[in-house]
């Protein structure tokens, strides 16, 4: 069932490319340009996906598997990832879909990200991950929608039914989404449509990935690690590796069809050094945090996982720190 990963990836790549969905921009635009367009796309999608996840889990279609909380990984790893995404010129998903658009800086950033992540997840730097994983906190859930021994969610913290929790969570996000002013932007895909597509694809991804033996939804980091392992060892392509390949293919199709494909190169070659360093920081940070802006911020926050909420806060703080250092000072 690995091919379903490729299918999900292609659809994801098209949505990311058309919707211009980059979390690096979403976090940063609010700070630098007072622009909330992408952040609203995100809060809208996550609220919807949170409800959908619990509904489909209650129907018995999927089992939810939130990532374990890890105070050190979710704070330090996530902060390093946040710093790195600004240097790399995109988050994990942003860099991956821009590879398909012909952004040469993203080619390097993606390779550097994948190589470093593979080094931490099974390579020469795996002692770091082994050391940090000792601090994983797993819980047994009161609700049957969650896999036992996975990470705590808001529903566990407040001791209420996951569906009620998801509705409260979505309501809070949607109050922000619809009761505050949205920055205008002329785009090819309306942010509300992109949000609905993202949430629906998130649930579909979870279902297909579970059938391939991987109980999780959309992600990026694990896919890059798999691609690196396939290239250098006898490892086989798995669901998430196929998904990442699909994103690149989908974004390329979408960019070519929209006449937006172009080999883009910066005039100052030092930019290539910057994105290499940024990609490496992202690979290290995401591996320590247990996921990137998709695994945590999109999928994990939709699960209402404490690990993912904490990681996302530190992705944003890292992003703001580096954005301020590079671009914010007058």
């Amino acid at each position, binding site marked *: 069932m690995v091919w379903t990963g490729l299918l999900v990836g292609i659809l994801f790549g098209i949505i990311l490319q058309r919707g211009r969905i*980059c979390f*690096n921009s979403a976090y940063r635009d609010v700070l630098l340009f007072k622009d909330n*367009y992408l952040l609203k796309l995100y809060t809208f999608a996550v609220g919807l996906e949170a409800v959908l996840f619990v509904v489909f889990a209650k129907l018995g279609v999927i089992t939810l598997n939130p990532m374990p909380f890890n105070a050190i990984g979710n704070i330090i790893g996530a902060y390093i990832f946040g710093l790195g995404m600004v240097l790399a010129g995109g988050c994990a998903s942003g860099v991956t879909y821009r590879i398909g658009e012909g*952004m040469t800086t993203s080619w390097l950033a993606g390779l550097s990200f994948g190589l470093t992540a593979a080094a931490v997840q099974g390579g020469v730097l795996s002692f770091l991950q082994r050391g940090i994983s000792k601090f994983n906190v797993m819980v047994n859930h009161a609700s049957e929608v969650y896999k036992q021994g996975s990470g705590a969610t808001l529903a566990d913290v407040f001791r209420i039914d996951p569906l009620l929790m998801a509705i409260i969570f979505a309501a809070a996000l949607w109050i922000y989404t619809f009761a505050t002013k949205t*920055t205008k932007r002329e785009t090819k895909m309306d942010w509300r449509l992109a949000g609905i597509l993202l949430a629906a694809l998130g649930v579909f991804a979870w279902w297909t990935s579970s059938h391939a033996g991987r109980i999780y939804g959309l992600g990026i980091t694990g896919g890059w690690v798999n691609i690196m392992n396939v290239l250098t060892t006898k490892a086989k392509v798995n669901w998430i590796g196929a998904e990442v390949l699909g994103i690149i293919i989908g974004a390329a199709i979408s960019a070519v069809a929209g*006449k937006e*494909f172009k080999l883009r190169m910066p*005039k100052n070659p030092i930019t290539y050094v910057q994105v290499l360093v940024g990609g490496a920081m992202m690979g290290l940070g995401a591996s320590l945090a247990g996921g990137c802006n998709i695994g945590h911020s999109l999928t994990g926050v939709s699960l209402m996982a404490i690990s993912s909420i904490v990681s996302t806060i530190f992705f944003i703080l890292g992003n703001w720190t580096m954005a301020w250092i590079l*671009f914010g000072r007058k």
Partner: protein
Amino acid sequence: MAKYEVTKLLDVRGEVCPVPDVETKRALKDMKSGEILCVWIDYPMSKERIPETVKSLGHEVLEIEEVGPSEWKIYIKVK
């Protein structure tokens, strides 16, 4: 290309996100009222985001001209 009396041309093709946006903001700060800035970009997202940022700062977007495959020139009149 003598459509506008361009005071300054900012070529940010190929730069990583959000360099085009930031350079545009910085250039506008150093310019005088009535002068025209031309921002030359090749990334579609910049074409969508820069005009909105510029407008929110009170400047006038005169035109977004397509000058090649995935290349645009944004003409901005400083307030």
